[in-house]
């Protein structure tokens, strides 16, 4: 504590200035009573999305997806989505839900979908203990684009990692303690996830009650998670993640996960499918950096232990060629149907390869325009050197309205990950109004 002798008194004009400047501010009304907690809440958003696709007619996934349909070079698609989010409070419990309804129309088809993303009832007998049951989207892991530790969730779309996803029906609990000292927080989350004929059918094989759990620690300013999922509908798996600020504006994170006895279907170029079973290890390392000029950089490396090597993927693409050659020469679609089936499985995942990098840079308030955020995102398959680049413009300056324009540019040769996708370019315009 430093004591300083008093200099000659100086009357500060800043005192008057300080009183004068907020005078205008006082004209802004604020009535907190309008925000009192209510027994129910309803909100959400209405989204309109217009997409223009340049189809990649030589790509394996174009040929398989459009089998028997009129062939085209491009496609325009309009999608309207309504997401409703609500809460109902009763007694010590809360029921909350999130639904998604969409209408989609393009030049070849139109469809609609109504899904309950989440609907769960939770009770909290103590601030440190919560019990809940229902449909819940638990999100585990620290990765931005990928989450190898996301054991009890539907896969994330790396092109839209912030999008809400449908959950699974489950019962879970949350126990939290704050011991203090170096170990600031401990939290334990056990989960029971049933798979029956009409419940969670896409999680894995039926008639299992799948246990899973996550332990979270905040230890010496580092987030640490340890997760486990028991053998049941899916092979057993375990993993951990971490996240830490190295400096105020520089964060590092990582995830590691091992799946025991993972069964991977592999085809050769003749369509002969074998199943390779073994432990699969995936991991991710990433960083997030905020520069002095308000540019945020996100970079991640993802090693996909369940992915296909360059050679394995190449054999699949050659098999697709073989299948279509057979179709043309003999009229038999047996091989094409087999290829189609494989393409709808693990070969058709958004990232079926083994090694990826993700990079995103976004500039806040660019060109001096507040709420204007241009960004560029790149994703590359390190094995076959194919990639996707996505420039983006976003504006959020209108109240509750988000406008976003994105251009997806895919590049890769024949037999490569991004070179065999359904589209080669996509322009997307999205307007989302929150209420």
């Amino acid at each position, binding site marked *: *504590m*430093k*004591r300083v002798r008093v200099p000659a008194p100086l009357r500060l004009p800043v005192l008057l200035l300080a009183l004068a400047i907020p005078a205008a501010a006082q004209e802004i009304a604020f009535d907190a009573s309008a925000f009192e*907690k209510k027994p129910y809440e309803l909100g959400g958003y209405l989204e309109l999305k217009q997409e223009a696709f340049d189809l990649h007619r030589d790509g394996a996934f174009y040929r398989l997806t459009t089998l028997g349909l009129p062939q085209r070079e491009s496609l325009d698609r309009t999608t309207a989505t309504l997401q409703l989010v609500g809460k109902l409070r009763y007694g010590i419990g809360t029921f909350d839900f999130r639904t998604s309804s969409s209408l989609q129309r393009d030049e070849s088809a139109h469809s609609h979908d109504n899904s309950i993303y989440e609907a769960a009832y939770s009770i909290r007998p103590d601030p*440190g203990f919560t019990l809940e049951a229902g449909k819940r989207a638990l999100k585990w892991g620290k990765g931005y684009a990928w989450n190898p530790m996301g054991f009890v969730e539907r896969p994330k779309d790396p092109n839209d990692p912030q999008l809400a996803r449908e959950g699974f029906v489950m019962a879970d609990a949350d126990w939290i303690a704050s011991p203090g000292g170096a170990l600031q927080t401990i939290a334990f989350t056990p989960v029971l996830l049933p798979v029956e004929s009409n419940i969670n059918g896409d999680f894995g094989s039926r008639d299992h009650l799948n246990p899973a759990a996550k332990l979270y620690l905040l230890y010496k300013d580092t987030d640490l998670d340890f997760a486990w999922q028991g053998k049941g509908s899916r092979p057993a798996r375990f993993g951990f993640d971490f996240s830490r600020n190295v400096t105020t504006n520089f964060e590092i994170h990582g995830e590691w996960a091992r799946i025991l006895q993972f069964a991977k279907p592999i085809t050769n170029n003749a369509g002969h499918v074998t199943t390779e079973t073994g432990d699969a290890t995936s991991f991710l390392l990433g960083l997030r950096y905020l520069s002095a000029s308000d540019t945020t950089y996100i970079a991640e490396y993802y090693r996909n232990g369940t992915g296909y090597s360059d050679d394995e993927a190449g054999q699949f693409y050659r098999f697709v060629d073989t299948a279509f050659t057979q179709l043309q020469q003999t009229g038999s679609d047996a091989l094409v149907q087999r290829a189609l089936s494989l393409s709808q499985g693990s070969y058709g995942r958004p990232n079926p390869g083994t090694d990826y990098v993700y990079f995103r840079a976004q500039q806040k308030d660019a060109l001096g325009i507040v709420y204007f955020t241009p960004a560029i995102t790149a994703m590359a398959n390190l094995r076959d050197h194919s990639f996707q680049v996505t420039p983006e413009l976003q504006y959020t300056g209108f109240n509750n309205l988000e406008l976003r324009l994105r251009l997806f540019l895919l590049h890769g040769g024949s037999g490569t990950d991004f070179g065999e996708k359904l589209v080669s370019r996509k322009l997307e315009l999205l307007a989302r109004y929150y209420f």
Partner: protein
Amino acid sequence: MKRLLGLIAFLVALPALAAIDGAQILQKVDRNLEPESYESYRQLTDIQPDGTKKVSVLYTMKKGRDKIVALFLAPASDKGRVTLRLGDNMWLYIPDVGRAIRITSLQSVTGSVFNNADILRIDYTAEYDVAAAEEQGDVYLLSLKAKTGEVAYDRLKMWVDKKAMLPVTIECYAASGLLIKTLHFSDIKDFGGGIKRPATLATDSPLQKGYRSVMQWSGLKKREFADEIFTLNYLPRVQELRK
């Protein structure tokens, strides 16, 4: 002779009488601004050069010197977002994303002149040491130095009203000496429970000329919270704590 000795004794004692305890003033400022544990509602208004306004409303809970949570109640696009600060660590929970990500003190979750360090402000004594204190008429001028490099502003100049022992103006500087922003407190209001403090805080920045942000308080009152509330796992349920 006695008078002369008395005068000498007075002159010798004068510096001690006049010396001020900057750390004590800062502690009083902290407690006069807010109780150590409290809840409050705040409205953040961001005003663009053309007069366009964007308004956010937050429900805030603080415990101890360095635990604070802020829940967004408006606008609809941000509703349900929660920011948590534990000392130097800050996270943002977005309901759609479904998990918390680490954020930095210099970012602004609202896109306002107020950054996260302003919105999730913890006690000044938790982040700053008093490097110098002086009296300037009706105010004290405290020169504050950040305790670590993790703090958003390296130095603060804080003018404190001597009578109310509340800040009037705070200038925030980077380590380079660059003035980042100025905070102007005003509109002293009795919130009840012995809390009488400025209900309005306005800010402007030479780095964002023409833009201005205003923070207004309502419903500020003492309230005790369990430690478990200030954890990542609790963030999706924070809004259930509102009465």
